[in-house]
């Protein structure tokens, strides 16, 4: 069964399994930390001579598919499939590494392991915890390397200062726009316990442990003007004088600075939408100087930036928009539509609007052939150039349930190429 491998231990792969198709699972987790796990295919000089053998989230496969990134599987935060016989002869070592994305250090790692799975069973495992590390921001986890004509596995567990970039540079990879030659690093012996870079014992600030660390990934994004998507469910508007925002009443969850919320009389607009749909559009005007967070019942939010063009949004799918955008009510009439018509707001001008959806929406291109049909209850928005045609209501009779009939209204869209409709996976 699974063999426990201690740090710095080395073992022949053939001792673990007769298979040459390996699955390498990496698990590493710590409160508030996100990790990038990559596999470097290094040559005899321990260099990344070929960038295509840097397998990570942006490049999930090596050219001949011998090293493949499989993503999170079976409790592993990241996993790789390695077909050893197909690894080219120029690649002498596969180095598995993990780097912290964002702030943090390796001592905060709660638990982690690298495991080798062959033919569906785990044959080897190297476990580690954050106590083995200190302020490093990267760690070399394990190596699969060639020695005397056969493949071996080494549990490395060696911390490394600096992030992914430093690691990349260490391996002689090209860091972004870094034209200075990488300082010569003495060629490593394949012994994995050789210290790769002396970690200078530099005094650092005390590690903040506790709630702050647990919440790191939810901290506010850095300040910037205009609209910012804080996360899937939250947007932030930075207010300046003369740049008001209109938002649904009650959509403010928090603000910093000076913000004022005032009833917005939308006049004819409100009356029209209200009278005809029974659901008046209740807006408030947010003004002042500060940062306002808007959300609505944890709906997914999407920022749409208009630059002189127009956009149609279902009147109940709009969360907020810049007050300088022009808006008008459009009514789609059709036989059998609920309440005699469907109301949308058409916004145009230069500015941003926020659309809310329940779930991740799909953006369908509008094409003349084949036609695009959308259930009116799932419709969120569409580009102005798309033409709407109502179609006869589709009646669905579910005869298996007595007395149960359902009626669905589809809208057909037509338009020039480049137009689109936004549909949510939720029928309001």
């Amino acid at each position, binding site marked *: 069964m699974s063999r426990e491998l201690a740090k710095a231990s080395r073992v022949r792969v053939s001792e673990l399994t007769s298979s040459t198709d390996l699955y390498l699972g990496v698990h590493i987790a710590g409160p508030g930390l996100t990790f990038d796990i990559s596999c470097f295919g290094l040559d005899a000089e321990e260099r990344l001579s070929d960038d295509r053998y840097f397998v990570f989230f942006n490049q999930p496969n090596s050219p001949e598919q011998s090293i493949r990134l499989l993503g999170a599987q079976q*409790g592993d935060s990241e996993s790789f499939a390695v077909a050893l016989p197909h690894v080219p002869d120029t690649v002498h070592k596969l180095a598995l590494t993990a780097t912290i994305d964002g702030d943090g250090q390796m001592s905060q790692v709660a*638990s982690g392991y690298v495991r080798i799975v062959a033919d569906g069973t785990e044959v080897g495992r190297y476990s580690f915890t954050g106590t083995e590390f200190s302020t490093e921001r990267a760690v070399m986890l394990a190596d699969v390397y060639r020695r005397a004509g056969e493949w071996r596995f080494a549990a490395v567990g060696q911390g490394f200062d600096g992030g992914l970039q430093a690691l990349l540079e260490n391996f002689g990879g090209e860091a972004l726009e870094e034209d200075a030659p990488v300082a010569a690093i003495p060629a490593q012996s394949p012994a994995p316990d050789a210290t790769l870079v002396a970690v200078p014992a530099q005094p650092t600030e005390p590690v903040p442990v506790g709630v702050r660390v647990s919440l790191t990934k939810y901290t506010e994004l850095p300040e910037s003007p205009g609209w910012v998507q804080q996360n899937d469910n939250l947007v932030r508007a930075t207010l300046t004088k003369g740049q008001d925002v209109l938002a649904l009443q009650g959509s403010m969850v*928090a603000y*910093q600075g000076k913000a004022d919320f005032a009833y917005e009389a939308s006049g004819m607009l409100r009356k029209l939408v209200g009278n005809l749909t029974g659901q008046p559009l209740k807006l408030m005007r947010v003004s002042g100087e500060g940062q306002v967070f808007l959300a609505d019942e944890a709906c997914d939010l999407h920022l749409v930036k208009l630059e002189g063009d127009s956009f149609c949004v279902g009147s109940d799918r709009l969360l907020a928009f810049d007050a300088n955008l022009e808006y008008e009510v459009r009514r789609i009439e059709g036989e059998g539509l609920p309440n005699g018509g469907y109301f949308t707001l058409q916004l145009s001008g230069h500015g941003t609007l926020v659309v809310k959806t329940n779930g991740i929406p799909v953006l369908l291109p509008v094409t003349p052939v084949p036609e695009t049909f959308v259930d009116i209850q799932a419709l969120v928005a569409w580009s102005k150039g798309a033409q709407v045609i109502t179609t006869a209501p589709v009646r669905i009779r579910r005869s298996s349930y007595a007395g149960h009939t359902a009626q669905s209204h589809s809208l057909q869209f037509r338009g020039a190429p480049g137009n689109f409709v936004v549909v949510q996976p939720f029928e309001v």
Partner: protein
Amino acid sequence: MQAQFLAGGGLGTHRPADTAARMSNHGKAICRVAVTAQTDVYAKAGAMVAYDGFLQYEAVSQTFRRALGEWASGERSPLLRWSGDGALYLADMGADVLNLHLDNEKLSINGSHLLALDATLECAVEKVKGVAMMAGTGLYNVQVSGTGWVSVTSRGVPVVLNCAEAETYVDPDALVAWTTGLEVRARRSMKLGSLVGRGSGEAMQLGFKGTGFVVVQPSEDTADRLKIRG
């Protein structure tokens, strides 16, 4: 060879992670608590969705319950004390779960957002001073202090705001937790005009000032359908 990897596809990818962490996330909505013989955990009644290992629960003792009894806006929300050796899975109607590690810190948590806490932590019910009446909902909070883990729920991905930068105003319905020691006060944004039925929908906020932070959820839904009641 392919089949070996495909076996991990589909539902197989949702197997629980093998972690030794006291409280960890499984997905965003499930909290996994590793219960060991030494460390009991309090969990909101009804929050358990599954457990494995040798676990048993009991209602917490009367005195403790009295202290915590009315922690969430006057509702009785009994706690269960889980002990044994195994893994406990907790969830609250699909709300996001945040597992927080307290390092000799104090946190004030809106009672209805508290999912579980280490039995070693101290907790007390507090009334948000001077504001509870105005908020209407009655802001009872559970103050948790000490060193250990606590799990809170948030409807949607929350944001953490630093009150040291600027005074932070939060809609009481969107408030999840805050570090204690902050100066809390109410702010009414109601205007005279609001009194004649033309409100902005933002009648009152809580203002936080000082060194610390608040956790805010992107939802103001306080409807009972989205909460576990014991």
